[in-house]
Structures are given as structure tokens and as C-alpha cells.
């Protein structure tokens, strides 16, 4: 049940990705201010992604004493997280735009909670490493 739902939403997402302009063919054009707000949300998520990617570079450059494996894990996690944020940015933007055109409720996802948990775990483990003196 969950699997088929997941597959269906994945298929819908891919269809939107291949031809996102199709969004503009259905429903009515929403108030331009709502579209601009949606655009700013998109940009905020994109900045989040860019910041995570930049954080990946920072970890690799500014923690030379950190154990090499740990540093690689931190860097890769941050780079992948940044890429996921960028993907979510455009996916959520398209879905919100479509919901507004159709007059539906805006979509809700678990992505923000997952991101918050991920960043929290990273921050706590980094704090523990600093306290243990593994970074200097």
C-alpha cells in the first residue's frame, strides 16, 4: 500500500520534472504575490542547500587534524545533504505552484524534520569531537 503510493508519487514527480512547464497549463494563475512567496521559499531552500555544500568544503579544509575517515564522512554527508536540499527546493516549488493553481491545500512533507534531525546529529557529534580534543 505504502509502496504503491510511493511509486505513484515518484512517477508523478518525475513527470513534473520532465516537463515542469506543464504546471502552467492547468488551473488558474494564482495571485502573483503568492507565486513570489513560493519563489522566495524555493530560494531559501536553495540557499540551505548551498550552505550545506559550503559546509562540506569548510569541514574538509578547516579540520585538518580530524581523523581522515570521520572528515570524509562529514564532508560527504554535507555534500549529499546539500544536493538533496536543492532537489527538494525545486520539487516543493513545483508542487506548491500546482496546488495553488488547483486551489488545493499546500503539500506538507517530513523533509524539514529530517533535515533538522540530520543537522542536529551532525552538530552534536561535532561538539563531542571538539570536547574530546579530536579536532586540534
Amino acid at each position, binding site marked *: 500500500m505504502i509502496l504503491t503510493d510511493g511509486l505513484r508519487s515518484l512517477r508523478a514527480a518525475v513527470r513534473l*520534472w520532465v516537463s*515542469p*512547464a506543464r*504546471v*502552467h497549463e492547468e488551473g488558474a*494563475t494564482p495571485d*502573483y*504575490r503568492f*507565486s*513570489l*512567496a513560493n*519563489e*522566495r521559499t*524555493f*530560494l*531559501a531552500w*536553495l*540557499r540551505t*542547500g*548551498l*550552505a550545506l*555544500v*559550503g559546509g*562540506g*568544503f*569548510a569541514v*574538509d*579544509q578547516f579540520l585538518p587534524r580530524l581523523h581522515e575517515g570521520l572528515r*570524509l564522512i562529514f*564532508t*560527504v554527508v554535507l*555534500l*549529499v545533504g*546539500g*544536493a538533496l536540499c*536543492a*532537489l527538494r*527546493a*525545486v520539487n516543493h*516549488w*513545483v508542487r506548491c*505552484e500546482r496546488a495553488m493553481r488547483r486551489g488545493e491545500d499546500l503539500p506538507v512533507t517530513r523533509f524539514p524534520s529530517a533535515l533538522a534531525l540530520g543537522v542536529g546529529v551532525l552538530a552534536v557529534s561535532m561538539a563531542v569531537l571538539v570536547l574530546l580534543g579530536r579536532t586540534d
Partner: protein
Amino acid sequence: MADGQPPGAGTPRPAPDRDPGLQPERTRLAWRRTTLSATAMAVLAGRQLLRSDAPGAVEVTLAVLMGLLWAAFVALAHRRMRAMTGGRPPGLPPRTALLLVGCTLALALCGGVILVRPGH
């Protein structure tokens, strides 16, 4: 309308083509913040590449590629910001959104290549 009145009703606004909530301006500033974030990220990436003792073909290629990706990102954002000068800007073209995300993904990928390149 935010004040619950249809356009044209009540007190006439001095400039009807101007959004009292400054939405286009706010959106333009959001674009500016985003290009600044991209620039900061590109500078960090460049610093990473410059740290190599002997930059080889891989480093130079990566630097050029990331420079081009950054330039594309900023150019796209600039075009969108210019479209935002009117009172009622058109919606964000989906192609622009996809291209920006593509640039970000490619930059992250370059970051991955920097990590695993030989001699790192």
C-alpha cells in the same frame, strides 16, 4: 488584496502599479542573498583547489568548470532579477528553477570529485 478591498475601491493609491507589500523587492533581495551564498560557496571551493601544492590538469579543469557553473548561476539569477523590476512580475519560469538546481547539484558533484581526486 491584503486589506480585503477590491482594487480601485476605497482610498486610491498614489501608484497603482506598486505593490504596498514590496513583494517584488523582497523577492529580488532573496535572489541577491542566493547569489551571495553561491559566491561564498564558490570561493570556498576555489580555496580548496588552491591549497594543492602542485595544481595539475584535474585541478585546473575543476576550477574552470566550477567557475563556469558559478557564472551560469549568477547570470540566471541576474536575468530573473531584471524581470522583477515591473510592478507585477511574471512567475518564475520552471526552466530557470531547474537550471539553478542543476548548477547547485553540479557544484556539489565537483566538490565530491575534489575529495576523491588523486593526491588529495
